[in-house]
């Protein structure tokens, strides 16, 4: 497909656009349309009349749990083989492709000769991660997924944003470090 150039005309500034009142009115019309449409849909549902689309619902996050899409990219998870060993072969492709440079892997010899190589350490700094999902795409052995369905990852220190291999594998729960707790950056 050849690249085409399309010249877009700048919209003309007329008296109607310059006084803004018309645009304000049009904006409010959209707002009120949503209000009345949703009011109507919720009323129909309350009355038990079927055949209408459901009305919009506001989720009371964080009091209520967040509802995530099925393909949402959330916190990383490392997967295991059938024998329980981590799938990761420490090929470093995810570390290479990572645009935020938040993955740090060191490799070692795997005891299994057919596997050859495995990760000694595997750290992801979620404070630096941009959740692009390239690491999942790059992985040749399907060892890393972004489907832990966790989005509440904040912590009291930058150090606590780094998840290590047992934590990413789910072997060890991620606990805030004591050092991070003791030092409150807001208190002098």
């Amino acid at each position: 497909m050849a690249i085409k150039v399309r010249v877009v005309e700048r919209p003309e500034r007329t008296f109607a656009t310059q006084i803004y009142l018309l645009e304000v009115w049009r904006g409010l019309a959209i707002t009120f349309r949503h209000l009345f449409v949703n009011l109507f849909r919720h009323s129909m549902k309350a009355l038990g009349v079927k055949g209408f689309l459901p009305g919009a619902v506001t989720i009371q996050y964080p009091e209520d749990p967040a509802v995530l899409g099925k393909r949402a990219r959330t916190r990383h998870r490392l997967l295991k083989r059938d024998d329980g060993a981590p799938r990761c072969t420490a090929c470093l492709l995810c570390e290479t492709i990572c645009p935020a440079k938040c993955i740090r892997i060191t490799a070692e010899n795997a005891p299994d000769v057919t596997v050859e190589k495995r990760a000694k350490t595997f750290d992801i700094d979620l404070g630096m991660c941009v959740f692009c999902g390239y690491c999942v795409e790059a992985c040749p052995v399907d060892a890393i997924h972004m489907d832990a369905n966790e989005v509440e990852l904040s912590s009291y220190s930058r150090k606590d944003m780094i998840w290590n291999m047992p934590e990413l594998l789910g072997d060890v729960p991620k606990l805030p470090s004591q050092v991070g707790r003791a030092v409150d950056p807001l208190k002098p």
Partner: protein
Amino acid sequence: MGKIVKYKLNGKDVEAPEGQLVIEAAKDAGVEIPHYCYHPALGNPGNCRMCIVEVAGAPKPQVSCRTGVREGMVVASDSEVAKRAQASALELHLVNHPLDCPVCDQSGECGLQDYYMKIGQYSSEVREDKEHKEKRIVAGPHVMLDQERCILCTRCTRFVDNVTKTHELGIFGMGHTEKIDLTPGMTLDNAYSGNVVDICPVGALTDRDFRYKVRVWYLEKTDSICTGCSRGCNISVHANTARPWHNDGKRVARLKPRMNLDVNGYWMCDDGRYGFSSLDADRLGKVLRLSPQKSEISWFAAGVELAEILKSSGDGLAVAASGMLSNEDWDAYKALFVDELNVKRHYFTSAPDQVGIEDDLLRRKDKVPNLKGAEARGLLSGDFGDLAKDLEAGKIKTLYVIERDLSKVWGDKAAGLLAKAGTTILQGPNKYALGDAFAYRLPATAYVEEEGHFTNFEGKIGAYKKALAPIGDARPDWDIFALLQKALAAGKKREVAA
């Protein structure tokens, strides 16, 4: 050879000496013909069939590593026929290749990967299961063998047969079970074993020292000279600085030979290749005065204090250096210690601690790169035994040590002898064993942190470039000599003014 003939390569008229191999002639003309088994130093068995080209008039495509250039010859390496032949040859190489690129250390500099991306046919028509062979064989102290990845180009066996003549590797079996293996009862432990890793076009022979340390695409490559002996092999320093958590935190990941037919050919020895582990060990980072008490001083203060000491010691000044200094360092050394201070006691001979094995391939007796540079500048070295006697007799007021580990020169006596000297100064990149016994410590850059020239034992001058940033306040040796000379001149000026 000799007569220059004209022939056609990919539709262009090119000239080459008659009889020169087409693959070499094409390389000279800027056309790279894919190849695995051919190596300029190891001959052309023609078994990989990758360098196949179409020659007009020939009934079949020809292997360019066994075809000589003739007058009026018409060669095509990029015609449809040639490309199909090359792609088919590559397909056959990949029949039993395990394709474990993610865990393979060669990945990123692998001949199979490179040519597959360039000329591969991208859809395999092989329906057979792959033949499995032995993986992870410890071939020797430096080399790991993986028979599965091997494409049987025989470069490694030709290297151990023709270059080192030690015959540790051979081809065993036939047909699909054919494999490279160690000769029964032998290990690949010759002094040049690391070279088989370089010449292996695939990941069959990999470096044990480098194994799983860094992926090759992270490495920054800088041209340099090996400091392992006075041969001055041309090398390439592969450093990993962007991702310091790899390679156990060490900055230099590996050294590779760089082709220079006048000096080292294509090879380097294992002593040089793996001799960089002490590079970052116990580095001097700060200018220190250690007596009467340890304190950090500036380069300026060190210059003023040392200029005073050097000037006042007169004949009692002895300089113990080593052949690690570059030509530029020797120039500055001469200007300071010979022309300015008129020092009579210079000690930089490689004996007794910097001598080692010599052979007729590359290794030389002197295990430092640049004694010739000092010789070329008319500097003469005394014997370290005499220096020990002078120290014993209390004749040495000031001992200036440059890049030399005296504990290796004198053994256990070194600490005692050092204590006999009035003032002791250590200048160099590393602390060595006796680093704490000196009165002054001046940090100098290691050879990978500076640029300069070494003169090898034949008088050939080679340039090395800066691969890494200096550690701490380290300066090149010539810069330190220049600083002292400047301080001396300033001192003189003050005297005149007073």
